[in-house]
């Protein structure tokens, strides 16, 4: 593991994401299933590709891929802004985000 992801200093972890096949929802691998909340994503280490292949084969996820994330006290924060927007929702429609009641949710993205 590197010392950080992007401009942050926390431990860099690998997490697995994709979209729900039926709904298209953004989902994150929790170790024993999928969650819509990136905070529940776990470090897959070097096993991401194997998990992705098995889960995609079982049609529990669509187009899975492994990303780098910063491990923080509230869970992983994806290294790239694109994945942070995927995790939260469009920054211009906080009402449609995964945390609509949190007025500071947008700060987590930027």
């Amino acid at each position, binding site marked *: 593991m590197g010392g950080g992801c*992007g*401009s942050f200093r926390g431990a860099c972890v690998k997490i697995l994401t994709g*979209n729900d*096949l*039926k*709904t*298209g*929802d*953004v989902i994150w691998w929790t170790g024993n299933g999928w969650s819509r909340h990136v905070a529940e994503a776990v470090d897959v280490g070097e096993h991401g590709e194997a998990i992705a292949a098995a889960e*995609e084969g079982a*049609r529990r996820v*669509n*187009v899975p891929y492994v990303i780098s994330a910063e491990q923080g006290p509230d869970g992983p924060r994806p*290294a*790239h*802004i*694109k994945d942070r*927007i*995927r995790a939260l*929702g*469009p*920054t*211009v*429609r906080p009402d*449609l985000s995964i945390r609509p009641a949190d007025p500071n949710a947008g700060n987590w993205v930027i």
Partner: protein
Amino acid sequence: MYRYDEYDQQIVDTRVEEFRDQVNRRLAGEMTEDQFKPLRLMNGLYLQLHAYMLRVAVPYGVLSSRQMRMLAHVARKYDKGYGHFTTRQNIQYNWIKLADAPDILAELATVQMHAIQTSGNCIRNISSDQYAGAAADEVGDPRPYAELLRQWSTFHPEFTYLPRKFKIAVIGSEDDRAAIQLHDIGLQLRRNEEGTLGFRVYVGGGMGRTPMIAPVIRDFVPVEDYVSYLEACLRVYNRYGRRDNIYKARIKILVHEIGADEYRRQVEEEFLHVKQLGIDPPAAELERIAGFFADPAFEDGLADDVALDDPEFAAWVDQNTHAHKKPGYIIVNISLKPVDGIPGDASAEQIDIVADLAERYSFDEVRVTHAQNLVLPHVKKADLKTLWQQLKAAGLASANLDLVTDIIACPGLDYCSLANARSIPLAQDITRRFADPARQKDLGELKIKISGCINACGHHHAGHIGILGVDRKGEENYQLLLGGSGAEDASLAKIIGPGFTETGVVDALEKAIETYRTLRTPGERFLDTYRRVGIQPFKEAVYG
């Protein structure tokens, strides 16, 4: 407007059921994503950042009230209560579930709509002038010709797998409101010296990674030959367009590489052959199609003046209306660009309201513009104030058409999986910065266009001021471009210098605009001043 015959309807209905079966097979695991992806894309279904996205075709930007109500219904029932009108005059829904997609397409088919050929390397939805059939400056109505091209290009067996996607725009005026010189093929309806109706044909324009203005390939093609001529244009492209490099596959690259003269020579040679095949429809068929676009029942002898006693109403009339060909009528633009709004977004309620207003005041017709606004094409001047009051109540009366806050913006990184940076927040920042109506009016026509990546869905190359979002080491960065135009005076904007942060680019844009204000002569638009003085004064103001 055009109405499907039994064959049109059967084609669309059959396609829906075919897609339903494909979706079922995908959900049952009988197809992998690699196998399914081209099939869903052929039906307008993308997988974007947050969900599936459905792009619904609006042929040449024309909608009836019934169709608008269906669009609102889809937004309400299957999406999150809104839709996004695009720079291709289409509408996109951002939160579609795969299992719902066939039902949505089935519902759309009941109002003669579909999502066929809104993706893929085929001829896409034909776009046109939003004022078609209404504008006072029109030589002829481009819609029947666009409709015929729609029929010709739908499921065309030879042009289903072109080297790359293909976009055609058709206009009928000298004023270009459809950016035809920035299309793969642009057609301008005109009369030659003998008074015969035909098309000036531009081929090889486009934006994206390699922006180009299309050269004129034929100055005049009689209308009875234009389908054959386009067939020849496409055949030459299909034969020689590059398939080994996606970045060099558009027709603009072919025309540029072999030169307009050589491309023209080959097209003319092919045309001589194609013309023998008899693919141009008989005049009676074009007349039949034109019959669908006959003028509505305009009243004669109507008063041609509007009482402008209310200053707010007067400002809106001055900015958002356009001359109609029929005395007593006027074309109304409905801006989807309120301050702090999302360009092109409309709620289901707003779409329903526009449908109602179109039914009541505009002979049941709505148009979508490539600038992501809506148009009521045939409004009686006597109804104008009442209409305005109802638009205002619905938050649809922003008096900013073609002003600094009437910004084109692609969905950007907030929605799009191809984007490198967000576009919408920038547009919102700019509208807040220039919210003062008096300041907007003082600045005059100023077209700002923002793209979140090099693919240029936000037409940044054609902006008087363009902004391009890029990824710089994982951070959003924005390049400022000046001097573009998508109108009849088409030009490509140039990058002014090193990029900026989000706040930085809005500051830079404001400095460029203030430079214009300082340097302009009476009557000059931003673009005119830029063309007169060049980029240097703007550069000095922005970076000095």
